[in-house]
């Protein structure tokens, strides 16, 4: 029996473990991957000119600190069930059952897909899988690839692939059908891209975003004049008026069929062409990985700007279920720095609320740090993230879902 058991060794779980262990709690972290760090392990981006966020280094630093504080780490161990007993939690894993007084779920995010004909062929992968192959495993996903889905995640990862000299045909929309909805509509995709205008190298978007914000006429003009060969972002052409209608190949990916779209999203007959590629990355966005929450009595609430269903929780990462805490991307899709800061809050919060540690101002300082990281985040997954958080943490929000 340990004091605090943490599921997930990403930035949130690791940061929480350090706070709790340095306040003398016994802490165990469980993660199913081979290496601690979670999604940090694939991350490499330039935050400002020549200032790089290196996820591998960050993971290493957090892991070392956790070790110094006596945190026990169990890797390659999957949690498949959790259950609250009278006064403790049992966590069922592929390596046995563990008991703890308090439980922190920091399982991060999962990728959303965009189904289309041919997406089950070998050589089709999620954009995150391409990131892991390239940055974590140092394996080239193929000779030439194509990215389906235009969003913050696919842009960030395309750059990482480019840094490894991987050839990319470009970004294309998914075909328009029931499950691809807005991600297949040129106008909504363009609008979404404009909200990403904070991403430094996309000057044209920043300009466009300023002028075009909320002006549908200008947005439509932008679409009509959108260059046929696309606009390059980090050397990869972005097409907002071309969609991939199928992925082709007999035993693996050999080509994709792309078609030109009118500004309203309808296909232009006869514009089909086949592009030769040997791998395809699909990027449908991220959603909180809440399956373990679904085993508890904790309520989930849908907030679009946070990425979908998130567990109802307080700003100090406590939940309404006794001794159950959440932190990181499971509470909403944000960058690694925010997840790390939330982990700090959760670690301190568990000490206070489950172990009667005196509530000094450490908790408030840590919560303030989360707000600051959020406000300053260079990589934002949704433009209205602050609104989503306010809804969740305000009294009003509680009335709505309470």
């Amino acid at each position: 029996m340990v004091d605090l058991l943490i599921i997930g060794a990403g930035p949130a779980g690791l940061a929480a473990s350090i706070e709790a262990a340095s306040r003398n709690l016994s802490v165990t972290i469980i993660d199913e991957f081979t290496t601690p760090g979670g999604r940090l392990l694939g991350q490499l981006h330039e935050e400002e000119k020549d200032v790089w966020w290196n996820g591998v280094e960050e993971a290493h630093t957090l892991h070392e600190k956790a070790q110094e504080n006596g945190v026990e780490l169990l890797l390659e161990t999957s949690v498949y069930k959790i259950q609250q007993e009278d006064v403790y939690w049992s966590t069922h894993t592929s390596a046995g059952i563990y008991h703890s007084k308090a439980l922190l779920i920091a399982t991060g995010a999962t990728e959303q897909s965009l189904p289309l004909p041919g997406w089950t062929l070998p050589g089709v992968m999620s954009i995150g899988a391409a990131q892991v192959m390239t940055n974590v495993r140092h394996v080239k996903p193929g000779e030439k690839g194509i990215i389906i889905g235009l969003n913050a995640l696919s842009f960030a990862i395309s750059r990482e692939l480019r840094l490894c000299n991987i050839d990319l045909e470009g970004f294309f929309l998914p075909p328009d059908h029931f499950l691809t909805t807005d991600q297949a509509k040129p106008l909504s995709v363009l609008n979404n891209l404009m909200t990403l205008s904070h991403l430094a190298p996309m000057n044209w978007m920043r300009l466009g975003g300023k002028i075009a914000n909320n002006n549908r006429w200008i947005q439509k003009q932008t679409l009509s004049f959108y260059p046929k060969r696309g606009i390059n972002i980090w050397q990869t052409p972005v097409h907002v008026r071309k969609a991939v209608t199928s992925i082709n190949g007999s035993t693996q990916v050999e080509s994709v069929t792309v078609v030109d779209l009118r500004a309203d999203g309808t296909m232009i007959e006869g514009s089909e062409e086949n592009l030769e590629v040997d791998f395809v990355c699909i990027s449908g966005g991220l959603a909180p990985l809440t399956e373990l929450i679904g085993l508890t009595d904790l309520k989930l609430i849908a907030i679009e700007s946070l990425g979908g269903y998130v567990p109802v929780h307080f700003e100090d990462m406590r939940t309404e279920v006794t001794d159950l805490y959440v932190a990181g991307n499971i509470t909403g899709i944000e960058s690694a720095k925010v997840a790390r800061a939330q982990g700090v809050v959760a670690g301190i919060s568990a000490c206070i609320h489950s172990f009667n540690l005196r509530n000094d101002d450490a908790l408030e300082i840590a919560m303030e740090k989360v707000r600051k990281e959020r406000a300053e985040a260079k990589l934002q997954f949704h433009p209205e993230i602050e609104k989503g958080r306010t809804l969740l943490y305000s009294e009003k929000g509680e009335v709505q879902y309470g």
Partner: protein
Amino acid sequence: MTKDVIVCRCEGTTLEEIATIAAEYQCSAREVKLRTRAGMGYCGGRTCRGFIDYIVSHHSNHQELTLHHRPPVRPIPFALFREVNDE
């Protein structure tokens, strides 16, 4: 297009099959899964679960959100499965 779009990769169930069954039986996502096997394959619905819920919620009047999961949430060996069921 909907005929060629596989939603459940493990069981090969298409968008059209799921939508048709949901509309025909006006039933819950769970019933659609049992009727089509969508989401019942090896991975336990990790990729398609959200899609199935979404399709069913738009093609059937059945108002039940299946946010609850049941253990195990990961594929596990049979030896461990016995223990899961020992409740």
